């Protein structure tokens, strides 16, 4: 326990050192930060949005925001907390945009004589880069199940169970109390249990 705490501390110091160097104009330091977090952030966003292209796009947007807000970053909390928080906010915004896109889509064009509205969902036939990712059927079912969770449950459970963050870290990223965080994670697991009972 002490060794892993020391490792975390060392990494945190290392992150802060890189951030300080970036503030001083060291591009290589920023590149090191990117190298360290690009895959975890991409993975996190992929599991949240279930869309690889979108995940990569938002991951890049996350780093752009980190870069331009580097002067405002304070070392009072860990850099990983900071970057995951930015990524989370972007992901939630994207989710809201998706919902608005669905509502404003072609619904109004499809009306029966009784004025009942029929929602029209055009099929997405684009090829997905993540098709190279060989996932078995179980993983696909799990990913689909996660995608059905509301954002307030989806975020903490991905941070906790997929990204392996501690409860404290998840609470810090989401700026929630520890109790609320655990409660939401537990609730998320409960919701997933119904959908994944065949794999339990």
């Amino acid at each position, binding site marked *: 326990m002490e060794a*892993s*705490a020391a490792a975390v501390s060392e990494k945190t110091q290392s992150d802060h050192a890189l951030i300080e160097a970036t503030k001083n104009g060291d591009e290589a330091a920023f590149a090191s930060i*990117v*190298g360290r977090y*690009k*895959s975890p*952030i*991409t*993975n996190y966003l*992929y*599991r949240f949005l279930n869309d*690889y292209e979108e*995940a*990569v796009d938002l*991951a*890049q*947007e996350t*780093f*752009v*925001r980190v*870069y*331009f*807000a580097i002067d*405002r970053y304070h070392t009072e909390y860990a850099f990983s907390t900071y970057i995951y928080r930015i990524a989370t906010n972007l992901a939630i915004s994207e989710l809201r945009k998706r919902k608005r896109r669905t509502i404003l889509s072609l619904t109004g064009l499809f009306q029966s*004589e*009784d*004025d009942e509205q029929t929602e029209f969902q055009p099929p997405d036939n684009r090829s997905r*880069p*993540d098709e190279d*990712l*060989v*996932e078995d059927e*179980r*993983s696909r079912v*799990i990913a689909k199940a*996660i995608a059905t969770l509301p954002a307030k449950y989806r975020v903490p*459970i*991905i941070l*906790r*169970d*997929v990204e*392996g963050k*501690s*409860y404290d870290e998840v609470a810090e990223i989401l700026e929630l109390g*520890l*109790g*609320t*965080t*655990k*409660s*939401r*994670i*537990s609730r998320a*697991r*409960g919701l*997933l*249990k119904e959908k*994944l009972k065949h*794999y*339990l």
Partner: protein
Amino acid sequence: MTHEHKNIGGGAEHPGSDEQKISALLSGLQRVEAPKDFDFHLKARIANAKPADYQKAGMFPILRYAMPLGLFLAVGVGVMVNSSYNSWQTPTVADGSMPPNNGAVTATGPAPTDSNEIVVPTADLTPAVGPDGQRGPQLAGQPGAVQGSSRDIVERGMPAPIVPPGFSADRTVRPAPTPIIPPEFRGNSNSTTISTVAPPEMASKPVALADALQSIGIEVELEENKWKVKSVKGSTIGELLGVKAGDRLESIDGRAVDDKTVYKDGSFKVKTIRVRRGETAVDLQMKKPQK
């Protein structure tokens, strides 16, 4: 690793529990990597980005909360001002005596002879000469004078309301007519039958179909001895039924309708309407409003 508290907020992770199994399933998901050209695209993105767009982000959180808060305060103040204005308009005094002057504009002039009368001197009003030579208030630009009296009963502190031409100067306040509310809108009816009741003065007389339909917002006209919908008013029962302009009425509750259809005793009920829309017969039924 920080010590994790157990059983707080239901987050128990007992070995073998369903929660732990779910946790294991999720942690077993294959991790994706960022693409190889991630750094390249990121550099291009940063180079093309406008720093000002990202620096404004600091202000946005403040604006995000300040604007709705400002709007909320504005609405709240508006409601308060409006409600105090309305209460100022209708002062009530239990014992019938004159309401106290709470700083409102005081009418000057002859003292009221009756404790419930408040007198506003005619000098305060735009003078006008009525048909019989009497002076009274007048609407600006109105050709005719409006009869009014210096003893018009008005609420203390308020100028005499201007009575438009053609209306009686009698200021007796009549209660507002009770709106006729169909049963299903009263909140305790399971029926989808709509029943409109004719005004009292027509209760004993037969009501023509056109008049009955007009009472539910449907304007009809006769065309080749058949009723054709001319227009449907918004927010009426006619609209809720789904009737549209151009529909030709065929039957109401299974009863064929034509130019001779009347409703006896002033009652009109409709559950379903069959219309012809183009070549198609359509049955329309009132949908129960969502709560």
